[in-house]
């Protein structure tokens, strides 16, 4: 167990270093940060000096090395645009993204898993319509869904806000939208947008796995023992379905945070994804680097959790390690 975790941590560090290197190779080409940092009256000489000061003229590897050494000490530098430490900036934006992702993930799981089970067990109209909805869910691009929702619920019906987080309450550095009415209202549309795709994915996955498990011999034997369907479906089939579902779902939940970029852009949701997109526009290299690293970290952590969950769910793994 310990060596397993140690191995994972080592692997994760490698992943992060690679991500950082790739990011730095890329930054050379995303544009000139200085153009966005100064006004039109700033002379070329001053601009060149600023470049020099920021170390933008150093080779990629020097910049990369500098970034990694500083990052190792918890210092991600200053945002070019905001002129504040990137870590503070991300910390400020993290709650918004996490709350949105969390609600979406819960929605995706709470709706996706039962729908998957239902469609696997029944072949009726409801089940067929779930399947149809799921097809639509994976066929509609996220950005289209978001725009459509705004058009219908904000502009036409005026039920829900079209952008932002509403009022937030600050709890010891964590700004939450869960505690106010406007905060909750603002959460609905973006969360649906983000959840829809993942939900259908999870539903289809659960369905496929469940169908597979239902054909296993031990299910046949359970029938031969005269167990009622309910017991067979939920105690035996569902639990066995969970093992493969956990892996994919884990990764999917990770990509919820990544896909939040699009949702946050559409809904002006003040999270990290929006920050990232805005940073790309103004070539705010330190923010971009830190964001990419953070996402990689989230994935690494999710992977670790998934692996640990395996131990919880599957007794076959417990004894071996």
């Amino acid at each position, binding site marked *: 167990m310990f060596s397993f975790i140690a191995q994972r941590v080592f692997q994760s560090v490698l992943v992060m270093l690679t991500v950082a290197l790739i990011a730095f190779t890329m930054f050379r080409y*995303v*544009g*000139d*940060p*200085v*153009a*966005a*940092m*100064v*006004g*039109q*009256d*700033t*002379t*070329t*000489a*001053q*601009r*060149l000096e*600023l*470049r020099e*000061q*920021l170390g933008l003229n150093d080779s990629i590897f020097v910049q990369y090395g500098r970034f990694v050494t500083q990052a190792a000490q918890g210092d991600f530098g*200053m945002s*070019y*645009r*905001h*002129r*504040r*430490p990137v870590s*503070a900036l991300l910390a*400020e934006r993290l709650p918004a993204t996490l709350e949105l992702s969390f609600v979406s993930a819960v929605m995706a799981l709470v709706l996706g898993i039962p729908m998957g089970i239902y469609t696997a067990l029944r072949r009726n109209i409801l089940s067929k319509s779930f399947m149809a909805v799921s097809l639509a869910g994976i066929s509609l691009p996220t950005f289209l869904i978001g*725009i459509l929702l*705004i*058009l219908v619920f*904000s*502009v036409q019906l*005026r039920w829900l*806000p*079209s*952008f*932002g*987080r509403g009022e937030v309450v600050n709890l010891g550095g964590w700004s939450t939208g869960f505690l106010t009415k406007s905060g909750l209202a603002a959460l609905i549309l973006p969360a649906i947008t983000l959840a829809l795709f993942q939900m259908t994915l999870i539903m289809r996955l659960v369905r496929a796995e469940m169908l597979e498990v239902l054909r296993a011999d031990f299910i046949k034997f359970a029938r031969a023992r005269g167990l009622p369907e309910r017991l067979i479906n939920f105690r035996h089939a569902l639990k066995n379905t969970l093992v493969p579902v956990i892996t994919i779902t884990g990764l999917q939940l990770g990509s919820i945070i990544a896909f939040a970029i699009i949702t946050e*852009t*559409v*809904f*002006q949701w*003040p999270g990290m994804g*929006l*920050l990232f*997109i*805005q940073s*790309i*526009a*103004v*070539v705010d290299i330190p923010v971009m680097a830190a964001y990419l690293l953070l996402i990689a970290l989230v994935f690494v952590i999710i992977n670790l959790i998934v692996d640990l969950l395996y131990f919880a769910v599957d007794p076959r793994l417990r004894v071996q390690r």
Partner: protein
Amino acid sequence: KTFRFAYQGDATSLDPMALNETFTLGFQNNIYEPLVSYDGDLKLVPALATEWSNPEPTKWVFKLRKGVTFHDGSPFTADDVIFSWKRSQTPGSDMKAYGAKASDIKKVDDFTIEVTTPTPNPILPREWVYLFIMSKAWSEKNNAVEATNVKGGQVNYANLNANGTGPYMVTERQPDIRTVMKKFDKYWGKAEMKGNADDVIFQPITQEATRVAALISGEMDVVMPVPVQDWQRLEDAKGVKPLTAPEARAIFIGMDQSRDELLFSNIKGKNPFKDVRVRQAVVLAVDTKAINEKIMRGAAKPLGSLVATAINGYADSYGAPIAPDVNKSKALLKEAGYPDGFEVTLDCPNDRYVNDEKVCQAVASMLARVGIKINLLAQTKGKYFGKVLPQAGNQTSMYLLGWTPSSIDAHNALLNLASCRDPKTSTGQFNLGGYCNPKVDELTAKVGTETDQVKRNAMIKEAFEIVRADWGYLPLHQQPMSWGVKDNIKVIQRADDVMDLRNVVLP
């Protein structure tokens, strides 16, 4: 009463010396004040200075307003002005160019200062409308005596906090998310101020569709800008309307006429744009009126020059739109030796100006009709500027650019856009195509020091007429400002696209 408004981006910082950018400065102008300011028509009006004079060519005297207090309650004096000027010269400052307009400021008494300029400067008050005055005591107390600097490694207090003399004070600042302001009770100009909002909430909304939706759904009182194509929708929607006027920004296309061979073209060994006939052909091929009508919904103002009508020194003689003439354009190309035209890449930002990319596309299809095949390279402004600006080596053959002289004076345009490029004197910095005519340079230098306004305007006119005769640029239009406003709110849309809360009247 609460006023809510949205813009496509946020003010970069609250530090008035952090970034010389119109929106940021215009936003800060509600909190901080300069010596001399603009009114709703961009006319100079007294702010923290009540009187100013130019007793000698290189000397200006400003009389300062008495009884002004900063938001923290401390009084305003000449020391604050001198401190602010010095602060604008600190390493992190982006206002160095403005600060450098003075070589020294002497305090005559607590409410009089004497400014010495390195060269005669007839428009100093104008050039300083965005040099905001900060409190010396406050800055020293909060360790913010230097401008916010990316390199410092330390967070500058002034970056997220403000202490100005303006009508509104910041009560909450979450960059990129929202900024909340409250009316300043002890504002010196309270009596005359029309604006009646008690609280102001500002939120940036990046996506156009979301921004418009926020207005229509009633979440916002004013949003800026709205896409011109959505005006009809705003007209139709209840309770909101579009508000528009030509902005002081001129949009034009430049051509690389300095290199011997274009960087991005199929013509090798020579530069077609060096031939005045080719440049004329390009200009004549483009129908600015059609672009205005179809792409800008008639909201722009076709223009024949690099400065807009609102700019000091503008004259119709060089600013009237140029009529297209496709046949002549073709003939000129043939004459110049390009009967089948040629290919060239047009660099274009896609998130900087109103419908910038669409304008470029339209220009491309118009040029295609005379045989010039345009490869359109539309990129985000970060990439675009990273490619075309001098520090990247002006890597462009043809580009679309917009320009508002920060001083609202034509000299700024002459200096930056029409003067020969010279890195030493920093002239022609935005003359990305390297247009060069020594006669224009000569005139520009004279305009810079001429204090007689009539003579000065005559020289401006002469210089721009030369640029036009050289077909040095393809001017397109003055882009429209385009705001979406609730019907019951009165705002003044200034030609520099700045939201001045002093002019916002709620019902």
